């Protein structure tokens, strides 16, 4: 039933860091002469301490990548920045050639590595729909057939004959995506385009892509940092790490594996001696840990997971009224809460603390904890900023909306509807 439409064998891509080639004709010819004719080494290699150092450092952006994509499959590609995701998409879209390996496939490919490719600022929206459509590989008849649909989807009907340079950036992006969304290739390659536009438009785009993959049975390759979108759209996922495939298979398990590897390190901070520990003469924080209450340790904390923060610090002052605050910040630096401990008198020595945040309280997103130590609840002793960083994954059941859920908190307070009988 499902045929293989893309088969990649041993794809590798080598990039040279720094300037590629020498940039000057004279040196290049000298190089060629020395290397090919005289069989010498590059005469312009730097020689440092008697050792030759190659001045053009080579980096494998991809190394021996093998994979197959079946017809109608949606494959998500995830990984850190610089893991080789974009290089892989560029090879598949025939923009760059692999250094080694071969990709074979069937069907028409359209790739969307950027919105608004080929737009001409001076020309009207109407002209640009045609230009962009043609560049992405649509035929004239196809564009004519879909023209009204494209204009309607973009929502810029009133300005369709205005030069696009007078568009707001939002209108520009909407028009550009509208063209792309109406492509009907056999294989669609998409890179991060959903990072644009407002929440409403993102929802529209994801919906359109969902239709494309689930209803029209189109093959999709999708690179995104929006793991929620990958989770919802893609059945299979590929995790690229430093040019190698780290994991592949079922999207849910790959995404979980990726997330847990990503965050495990920042969930605990422990120091063995007082001198290493962050702090000052008054306070030294020796240990902080975030413990998510998970049923399966391989999973990542999502919005349902209760979280416990444990910490231990050394108090260097005798007989002071001490209190600690646990603050939660968003990535953008807004404080969500500030939980204080009860002020009390402490002797010099170790003090331990613990706080548990229940599940179904925080929304999905990236957060950080800060620990704040105060004397007499007024003067600051030490503030350990961003001591723990963590992500909360999304979790939804029977909800057909894939955009970002609004708000910093997502409490599970009951909201009850009652139908009124006339």
């Amino acid at each position, binding site marked *: 039933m499902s*045929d*293989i439409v893309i*088969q990649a064998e041993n794809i590798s891509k080598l*990039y040279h860091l720094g300037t*590629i*080639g020498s*940039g*000057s*004709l004279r040196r290049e010819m000298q190089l060629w002469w020395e290397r090919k004719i005289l069989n010498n080494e590059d005469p312009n290699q730097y020689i440092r301490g008697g050792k030759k150092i190659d001045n053009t450092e080579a980096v494998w952006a991809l190394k021996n990548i093998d994979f197959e994509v079946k017809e109608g499959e949606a494959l998500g590609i995830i990984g850190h920045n610089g893991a080789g995701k974009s290089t892989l998409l*560029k*090879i*598949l*879209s*025939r*923009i*760059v*050639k*692999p*250094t*080694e*390996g*071969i*990709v*074979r*496939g*069937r*069907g028409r490919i359209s*790739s969307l*590595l*950027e919105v608004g*490719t*080929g737009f*001409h600022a*001076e*020309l009207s929206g109407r*002209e640009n729909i*045609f*230009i962009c459509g*043609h*560049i*992405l*590989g649509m*035929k*004239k008849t196809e564009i004519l057939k879909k023209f009204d649909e494209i204009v309607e989807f973009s929502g810029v009907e009133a300005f369709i004959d205005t*030069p696009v340079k007078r568009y707001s950036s939002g209108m520009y992006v909407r028009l550009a995506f509208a063209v792309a969304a109406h492509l009907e290739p056999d294989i669609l390659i998409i890179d991060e385009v959903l990072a644009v536009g407002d929440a409403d438009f993102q929802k529209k785009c994801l919906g359109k892509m969902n239709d494309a993959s689930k209803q029209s049975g189109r093959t999709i390759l999708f690179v995104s940092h929006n793991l929620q979108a990958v989770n919802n759209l893609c059945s299979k996922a590929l995790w690229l790490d430093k040019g190698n495939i780290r994991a592949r298979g079922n999207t849910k398990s790959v995404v979980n594996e990726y997330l847990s590897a990503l965050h495990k390190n920042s969930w605990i901070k422990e120091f063995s001696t007082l001198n290493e520990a962050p702090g000052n003469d008054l306070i030294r924080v020796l240990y902080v840990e975030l413990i998510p209450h998970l049923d399966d340790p391989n999973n990542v904390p999502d919005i349902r997971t209760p979280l416990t923060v444990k910490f231990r610090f050394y108090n260097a002052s005798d007989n002071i009224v001490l209190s600690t605050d646990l603050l939660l910040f968003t990535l953008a630096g807004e404080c969500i809460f500030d939980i204080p401990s009860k002020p009390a008198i402490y002797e010099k020595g170790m003090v331990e603390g613990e706080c548990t945040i229940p599940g179904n309280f925080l929304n999905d997103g990236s957060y950080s904890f800060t620990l704040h130590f105060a004397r007499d609840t007024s003067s600051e002793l030490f503030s350990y900023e961003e001591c723990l960083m963590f992500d909360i994954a999304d979790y939804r059941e029977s909800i057909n909306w894939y955009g970002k859920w609004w708000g910093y908190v997502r409490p599970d307070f009951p909201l009850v509807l009652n139908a009124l009988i006339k």
Partner: protein
Amino acid sequence: MSEKPNKLGSVNWEWEIKPETSWWNISLIELYSYTDLLQQLVRKDFLGLYQQTLLGPFWALLQPLLTVLIYVVVFNNIIGISTGSVPPFLFNLIGITLWNLFSEIFLQTSKTFSQNADLFSKVYFPRIIVALSTLWLQLLLFGIQLLLLIVAYIFFLIKGEVDFNLGRLLLIFPVIAITTGIGFGGGLIFSVLTAKYRDLLSLIQLIIRLLMFVCPVFYTLSMVPEKMQWLVNINPLSSLFEYFRFAFLGMGSIDILHLSYSTVFMLAMVCFGVMFFNKMSDKLIDVL
């Protein structure tokens, strides 16, 4: 194309992406499927060129007109180059029209990679489509200039200062074709080189300026001294200008042998240019 059996039997792969592009790998079928794009690019460039301008496409006329006036003043009135019985205005306009065709095609085609780096790194289509669209745009602009030339020609024809011969005039078509070919082939080769070595772009401007003096744009070959004839003979463009002027005015020396040399040179340039461009275009994306 290759076939590889899988568990469902044999699969016909429709495309392959391999590390190297061969010299011969030019698919006309693929190019044909992009004719809509070619058309649209020409349209876009033409419209874009004159959007929000005062004179619009009349700019294509203004440039040769002003150049002709300067040439007439400098070369004919000040330096005193004789154009015989031919009005200096028409004499220079003929030369400049053909020269513009060559220099614009050569210069604009050679910018194919350096000006479209953004586009080329985001989407795939045969890169030569952009070069072809440049070629068509320049031919379109040349058409406008040719109209100007024809209007001027008719004007002097009515005044009785030049004569008319249809058979002779048809010569302009092969001349235009050969000139276009040399400019396009050279432009393709230099587009690859300028992508790699950016400084070559300014070199091209210089080459074009120097080349103009070697071509009989504002003089005839008969004015070239014996000692310098070799320069005329190795320059594949020189006979084209003589033929072009001959087509309109019936003056100047024409040489079939030299025209054949130009034709062979043109064919070689186009073939090598296309192959070189095609071979290198995939690699250049890494450099751009």
